[in-house]
């Protein structure tokens, strides 16, 4: 008789645990407005991206098309993947001195691991991380970017 009671209580206990689990899922079933899915391309406008989000390396230019990059190449040294290439040129300053300046700041987005070491190392704060994250392209070559805009020049007062 004892074993029969044990048998029945075992079954009832088992069913109870099953019902507990079903209650959890039911709770969410009957509160469908609490769903956590985000409809991605539609919610682009309301999408909140943290300001520190590491999407790509960008070089901010001000309204006069001026940047802060001196072309020192520290970011290139610090990059673990070789995704930054600095091509520098020498320009004549107004005083008639030769000075090194950036010709092209080439950034290979396809090789970048977004480790932030270049930004941390940059002595002038010329490059920062941008929040853009939609990097899909049709052609791999378009992942190689030149960060300094054409015709841009270095900001006044920024020195190596």
């Amino acid at each position, binding site marked *: 008789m004892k074993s029969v009671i044990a048998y029945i209580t075992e079954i009832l*206990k*088992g*069913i109870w*645990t*099953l019902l*507990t*689990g079903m*209650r*959890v*899922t039911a709770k969410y079933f009957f509160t469908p407005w609490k769903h*956590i899915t985000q409809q991605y391309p539609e919610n682009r406008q309301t999408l909140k*991206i*943290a300001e*520190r*989000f*590491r999407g790509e390396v960008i070089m901010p230019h001000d309204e006069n098309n001026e940047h802060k990059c001196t072309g020192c190449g*520290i970011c290139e040294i*610090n990059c*673990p993947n070789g995704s930054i290439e600095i091509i520098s040129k020498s320009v004549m300053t107004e005083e008639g001195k030769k000075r090194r300046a950036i010709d092209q700041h080439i950034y290979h987005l396809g090789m970048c*691991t*977004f*480790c*932030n*070491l270049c930004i*941390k*190392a940059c002595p002038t704060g010329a490059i920062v*991380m941008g929040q853009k994250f939609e990097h899909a392209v049709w052609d791999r070559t378009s992942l190689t970017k030149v960060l300094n805009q054409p015709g841009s020049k270095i900001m006044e007062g920024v020195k190596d």
Partner: protein
Amino acid sequence: MAELKEVMITTDDIKTDEYLVNMGPQHPSTHGVLRLLVQLEGEIVHNVQPHIGYIHSGIEKMTESLSYPQIGHLTDRMDYLSAHMNNEAVALCVENALQIEVPDRVKYIRTIMAELSRLASHQLWWCVMGMDMGALTTFFYGLRDREEILDIFEETCGARLTVNYSIPGGLMFDIHPNFQRDVKAFIKKFRTKLPEYDRLLSGNVIFTERTKGVGFLSREDAIAYGVTGPTARASGFACDLRKHQPYSAYSKVNFNEVLSDVGDTYARYQVRIQEMWESMNIIEQLIDNIPEGDYAMKMKGVIKLPEGEFYQRVESARGEFGVFIVSDGKKNPYRVKFRSPGFSNLFAINHIAKGWKIADLVAIMSTFDLVIPDIDR
């Protein structure tokens, strides 16, 4: 009668043949590109031979041509589910070698971050565990809660998974102004969500039937096979390095090392669930007491380690993670060895799964919480 005896068939005569099944490299329950060569007799597993290397990325070789701060971001990509702990291990190892002491603020933040990644990692483990057992809903509940931690990571570290937050000498950034508020809100919320995990899965009679008394690992075997982390603690092997060799701010907090002496699949499950509670305790003790100060020390542009060998052990989410740096005084390490927890844990699987069924093999593997890049490196 003699003729009759000859044709009589005993149970020994109707033995089935053993056959080999390749579980993987593409298989839903190997959690990545792992191949298990399983020797089966019917449903019974006779031998499991793991074959790895499908995602071997040669990180140890790559580090030999990188400088010390650059190593950190590669370790993100090993155990990507607890990336912060790997960063921390490298950072601590370099700091130890340079014999510098980071500010208390750094230690506190590192500890909080490590515990948050442990929580995130265990949450993902929980969802996958449920999915391996066939309860598909767990996957979404676990990910739902993990998402909030990743949002916190995104806000402070700028990345969700491969954070690269701990660098030699401190942290990449200071914490975000909202960090403390968000973490506290998350802990408050997750304290109500974690019992839900229990109600949905831990208490379920099907789940307990499938895990209790299945896949035993004894303490001696755990030590012999070098099994660490929650997997070993479920067998009674007190190997929590946070407790026994405290680093960062772990010496300043009170927490229990979760131990169980049963050693079956259910014990491994419960240890991880309990560790989530402990992680929340640790975070709550630290979050309000983050001291003021610098978030990073001023380091030289080029970090050169003195000649010698340096070893740092940290407790990652799946066990003991070790960084062994051999330096010859240059800016690149001479040799770096990562002792990954998954590697040692994985190879105990043959010992444990022998004699159990295929379904048990899946459950056992799930409780090992394998991350394949962590094994392959």
